[in-house]
């Protein structure tokens, strides 16, 4: 099992969500984050243009079976891309165990709906 985490532009978030859905990833979490990097967010206050040292991004996180990892990574890479500095990152890590609380299923079985497919 792999955990896929991605930091993407807020403006690209809906496309990422849609692309993941098309790649059969229907369980995911996300939250708004602030961070710093090479991208700058320009603002204006009473005639003065300035930038804040933080940019707003979406942080997306989900766990998939190994067979779905590459497919979901590609979905993010394509849907979150603009080519400009600040497009974000995808991180992949191993997951030791996953347990569905309702059924006590462990491992791969906890990550998809057996009855649906």
């Amino acid at each position: 099992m792999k955990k896929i985490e991605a930091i993407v532009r807020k403006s690209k978030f809906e496309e990422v969500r849609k692309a993941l859905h098309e790649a059969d990833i229907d369980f995911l979490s996300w939250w708004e984050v602030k961070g710093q990097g090479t991208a700058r967010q320009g603002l204006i206050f009473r005639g003065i243009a300035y930038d804040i040292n933080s940019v707003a991004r979406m942080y997306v996180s989900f766990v998939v079976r190994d067979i779905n990892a590459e497919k979901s990574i590609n979905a993010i890479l394509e849907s979150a891309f603009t080519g400009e500095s600040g497009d974000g990152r995808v991180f992949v890590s191993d997951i030791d165990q996953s347990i569905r609380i309702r059924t006590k299923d462990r491992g791969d079985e906890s990550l998809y709906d057996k009855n649906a497919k």
Partner: protein
Amino acid sequence: MENKYFKYISLPVGLALISPATTFAQAVTTAVAPAVAATPAPFISPGNTAWMIVATALVMLMTIPGLALFYGGLVRSKNILNVLMQCFILTAVISLEWVAFGYSNAFGSSTGALAPYVGGFDWAFLKGIKITDVSPYYISQATERIPHILFVLFQCMFAVITPALIIGAFAERIKFRGFLIFSLLWAIVVYNPIAHWVWSADGWLCKLGALDFAGGTVVHINAGIAALVMAVMLGKRRLPAGQHITPPHNIPFVVIGAALLWFGWFGFNAGSGLAADGLAANAFLVTHIAAAAAALSWALLDWFINKKPTVVGIATGAVAGLVAITPAAGFVDVSGAIIIGLLVSVFCFFMVSVVKGKLGYDDSLDAFGVHGIGGIWGAIATGLFATPVIQSAYSGAFNGNPKQLGIQLIAIVATLVYSGVLTAILFKIVEKTLGIRATEEEEISGLDITQHDEIAYSEAD
């Protein structure tokens, strides 16, 4: 005609403060009898009274919640409650000070050398003022007046908002206790005397002929220069290295606040004629048009200079326009109002975006940049654009009375000097006794939690 309310400003700057020795001065009332034969006895007009009760309530709305939200939205989220509390407590404290002796000091009379500088205590706790008494002050309606107690309350709202305007300069870095004592002392030794100079019939500024219809000098220049002095003496906020600007934490609040200021200002300016008549309607008209012109002008400046029209910008422009039209509202027509409004945003924009940065003082919310600069422009503009079409006795330089401009400048300088010096002295007194600058801990944790043990936006649902 010189006995009317708010008109004249004359020469010497007195530092006199409070005189206990007073005699009741009839001079305030109807001493001036122009070339009319018998003036009919003044009486309380129900129509004028109805309007002035509403106007008074509108002016209250300017401080809470108008100014409170305008300033509150501009600060960081850890300081909004502190700003709201400052506005709220000033409404309470200054109102009590006003009936205790503030009104008497500002609008009452005293005798001897102090008479031109400050009123006495004859009207302390409104002693002797009956509900049937007519206001001794009037503008255009000498006969059909309002109750004296209503005039007291109308002016109370002005006394409340003036120290509240200064909050913008020291926001986010002042101890609450120091702020409160400073503001109360400031109301007593700065606001009340200056109101007396300009608006009392005995006031020394009342005789030279400076025009200030609704408080450009007494309220805005006065608060504006006090704001600048406070910003300089308190020092800059402790911000991360290289940061000079803190983004407003809630721009919708700024918009609601500015809109309530705009709305309340109709009471402030159109109420300053103390009657429901054509002069009030004109004040209403020029106030609205100047605010509209200034809002548009700021938005266009933003658009040209920084490529985007900003919401904080248009809201700030509207307030600047309202400030600038305040002294002129009873003297200019709509063409004057448009010019006053269009230009005030240019001056204020330049002040807050260029000059402030060069001089390096930290006027957190631009109280000086908007109220000080806007007020000075308004006072000058009144001397330029006043037209006899509105009030036949008063003309500005563009209508054949160049002397008026010089008189306006004297009034501006006198207010800047007196208010600036006294503010500095009061700051030192409070700093040495109670302490006034917030500690680093207080400033970084935020004034909401450290001064009030409250949090505006709780995590709990």
